[in-house]
């Protein structure tokens, strides 16, 4: 029987680890990253017959980025209902944060304070290793926007982190 399941299962096995890490970096929480990636694969499965299979991995990446934005929007909605929160809703979850060295945590905290698009550009560039063109396609923006976002993000990080380094 010919079904979409085998190619989707192959895609799942191949892409899931990287996408889970990408989502975790974007949403800062492993459990929510899991949900984001699951939703992305469900979306791919539904649309498999209409997808260019050679670009399915890219489609998944876009779905993960969009899903991560949904998570942030949900957090923001909740935060608006709470007037005195002392916990940063964008902060990385404890299960992730506690397992990395303080030096890295300092950088991750600084990255979390960046605007959403700048964070996304940094993650796609320095974790996923995408080119400017690939990042632009993933985020649905121009290459110029990617370049500007990266430049501003790095400048901000340099100001925030530079003073702490010899």
């Amino acid at each position, binding site marked *: 029987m010919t079904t979409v399941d085998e190619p989707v299962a192959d895609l799942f096995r191949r892409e899931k680890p990287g996408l*889970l890490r990408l989502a975790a970096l974007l949403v800062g929480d492993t*459990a929510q990253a899991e949900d984001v990636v699951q939703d992305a694969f469900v979306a791919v499965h539904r649309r498999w017959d209409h997808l260019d299979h050679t670009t399915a991995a890219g489609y998944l990446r876009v779905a993960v980025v969009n899903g991560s934005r949904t998570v942030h929007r949900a957090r923001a909605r909740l935060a608006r209902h709470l007037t*005195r*929160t002392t916990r940063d809703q964008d902060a990385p979850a404890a299960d992730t944060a506690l397992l990395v060295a303080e*030096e*890295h945590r300092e950088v991750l905290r600084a990255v979390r304070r960046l605007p959403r698009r700048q964070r996304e550009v940094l993650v796609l560039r320095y974790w996923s290793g995408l080119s400017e063109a690939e990042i632009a396609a993933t985020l649905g923006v121009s290459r110029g926007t990617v370049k500007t976002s990266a430049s501003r993000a790095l400048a901000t990080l340099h100001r925030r982190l530079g003073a702490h380094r010899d």
Partner: protein
Amino acid sequence: MTDGERTDVEHRVAAAFAAAARAVDVTRPAERPAPARRVPPPVGVAATVLLLCGSLLALVTVFGRQTDELRLPPAAVTTTRPPLAVIDPFELHTHCGIRETRIGDRYYEADPVLDDGAGNPPSGWANPSQVGVMTVTGETEAVFTDAAGHTARFRLRPGATAFLRLCE
């Protein structure tokens, strides 16, 4: 951009991302059991159900209403959601007993109400208020704790715009 052209900040960002990514356990999802029945319905439907179960479980976890009927894959239960918000310090009004509270613009009822039977806080609680930490654990639940070991649980009153009763 090649690695050799990277600045110090870029190196630090890449290293931090790599370290954070390594902390993510990616083995667990791959080990999720497949549905036991692989005869009709077709494999495609079974795979979709498996994927949907993960999302459904997440919703169940959020709202804390997992039921036996769902029979979800046990591997997906291993993650714990972080609290939605932590308010520290939080001053809980206790003068007439622990009956209700407000978090942001939302009103909550104590579940159960804690008092001494005479309209005062139970023995050991400060009066008129106790300072501690309020943790919003779900969309409708919150828990107050303090350094003395007290715990008070609260449930959201959806749509409420005022306290049920005034305590003076």
